[in-house]
């Protein structure tokens, strides 16, 4: 008892306890259960069978890993495109727009809290035959539009759209970390604008850029609505395979094995990136 008391003597430990309990029971335990299930024989529903590697063998012999490659590719492309799209906006929010920044930030926050399938559905109505874009083109120019919906490009488009705020906000945080004096000093010492960007601005805002990219990548690799709503199931991302295994196919062990593969990719990336950062420094700037 006294050992327990001395453990909890530090107020930080006491304060951390409730959320730690939640995450142990609601995050760590389920993930361990998934790992356990992935070693069970196919189509079983308990955790107490003879462990086997059958599910993993099936994934690699059945080419199911192709969907993992699709997911990885789409997520990487999303990150690159978003980095290019968001940088000027983030820069503007920090350095250019002044008091308008707050309103703009709020505007960019709204989509974050509207469920992604509603917003993606808006794009469906925008691009669909007789929708806003084809309808406008036809009335104004009499032009017919080729099919964009239900192609891989549409899926990528949807992912770039949905995950934009997740790149934008960490990036803003990162750019705000670059002290103004530093840029001015570089300019005074004769650096060109490009040099200031490359030698000062970019390296010093890296933490924000990295965290934004990581967040976007991880969320994009878990994307499920984009391929269904905009892709018309032409592309099968890994999340879709996992979902099918869990629901229609009723093959939980196979779904669990696929989920484990995805989790491996994600956790290697997340741990590699996160360990490089001091969160006190990033979040605690005054």
């Amino acid at each position, binding site marked *: 008892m006294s050992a327990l008391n001395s453990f909890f003597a530090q107020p930080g430990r006491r304060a951390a306890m409730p959320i730690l309990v939640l995450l142990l029971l609601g995050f760590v335990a389920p993930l361990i259960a998934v790992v356990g299930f992935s070693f069970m024989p196919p189509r079983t529903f308990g955790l107490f069978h003879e462990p086997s590697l059958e599910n993993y063998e099936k994934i690699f012999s059945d080419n199911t890993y192709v969907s993992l490659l699709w997911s990885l590719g789409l997520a990487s492309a999303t990150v690159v495109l978003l980095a290019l799209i968001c940088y000027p*906006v983030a820069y503007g929010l920090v350095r*250019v727009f002044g008091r308008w920044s707050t309103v703009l930030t709020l505007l960019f926050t709204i989509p974050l809290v509207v469920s992604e399938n509603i917003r993606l*559905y*808006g794009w469906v109505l925008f691009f669909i035959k007789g929708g806003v874009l084809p309808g406008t083109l036809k009335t104004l120019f009499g032009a017919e539009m080729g099919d964009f919906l239900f192609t891989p490009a549409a899926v990528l488009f949807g992912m770039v759209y949905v995950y934009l705020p997740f790149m934008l906000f960490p990036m803003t945080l990162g750019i705000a970390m670059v002290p103004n004096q530093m840029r001015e000093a570089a300019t005074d010492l004769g650096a060109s604008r490009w040099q200031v960007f490359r030698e000062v601005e970019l390296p010093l805002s890296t933490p924000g850029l990295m965290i934004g990219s990581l967040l976007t990548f*991880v969320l994009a690799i878990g994307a499920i609505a984009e391929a269904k*709503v905009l892709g018309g199931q032409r592309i099968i991302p890994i999340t879709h395979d996992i979902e099918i295994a*869990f629901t229609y196919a009723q093959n939980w062990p196979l779904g669990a094995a696929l*989920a484990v593969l995805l989790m491996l990719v994600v956790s290697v990336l997340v741990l590699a990136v996160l360990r490089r950062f001091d969160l006190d420094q990033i*979040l605690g700037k005054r």
Partner: protein
Amino acid sequence: MSDSKYSVRHILIGVWTAAVLIFVFLPSATILLASMTSSRYFTFPITKFGFDWWSKTVNSFEVKQLAITSLTIAATVTVIAVVLGFFGALAFARYDWRGRKLYQKFILLPIFFPQSVLGLALLLWFNALGFNLSWKTAVLAHLVWIAPVVTLVMAIQVYSFDPSLEEAANDLGATRWQTFREVTLPVLMPGVFSGSLFAFLLSWGNFPLSLFTAGSDNTLPKYLYAKMVAGYTPGVPVLGTISTAAAAVVLFGGYAAMLILTRNRKAGI
């Protein structure tokens, strides 16, 4: 650096931002348009404007049930997440303890995790525990993701909190509870406020977690998804518009309320 060059760059950034903003809101605008047609199918340009589908949707019993379920989940999640997040943020940013750095990174993990996979993992876990899936299990699932987000949001506020305030109250003879109620809580109030705003809105709009963990209970995003996969009905744009507008109102209203609160406090009222 010449001034004209400077401003050209700023104009370019402004134009680009405006374009991105249009890109962000284009689907919402499309949905608003689609909700205002009185025909069964959406064709653009709209030939027959009308609000029939609005009254039909707003008056439907099913939609009221959905809204109630979604609200119940969001409200429950908010209350629990704010309590957990408040103490979690103190541990994150205020206290110095062994294991804090590790704790900070651990808290981030659920945020840096694909939500659909988390939802399926929880589905499997709840089943293994023998839980019946309902809105209550959805609350648990939302919490796993939202409590860490709230912790982060509040931690930013806690970083700017001066611990010597608490010590001063202590020295002046305040009990621990008095210090908490009279010093810690009021100072951190803006963080609590924005934390609860985020908790509520993120839960209200969540789809991947609800999809797998709410069982037969339907939330608005879940219902809309089922409807849009099944085929077009103009009720979907109407509900989508309502849901988007509600989120915007809560967000801007919350921000305005917070501005007024902080201004009053600075004025010493």
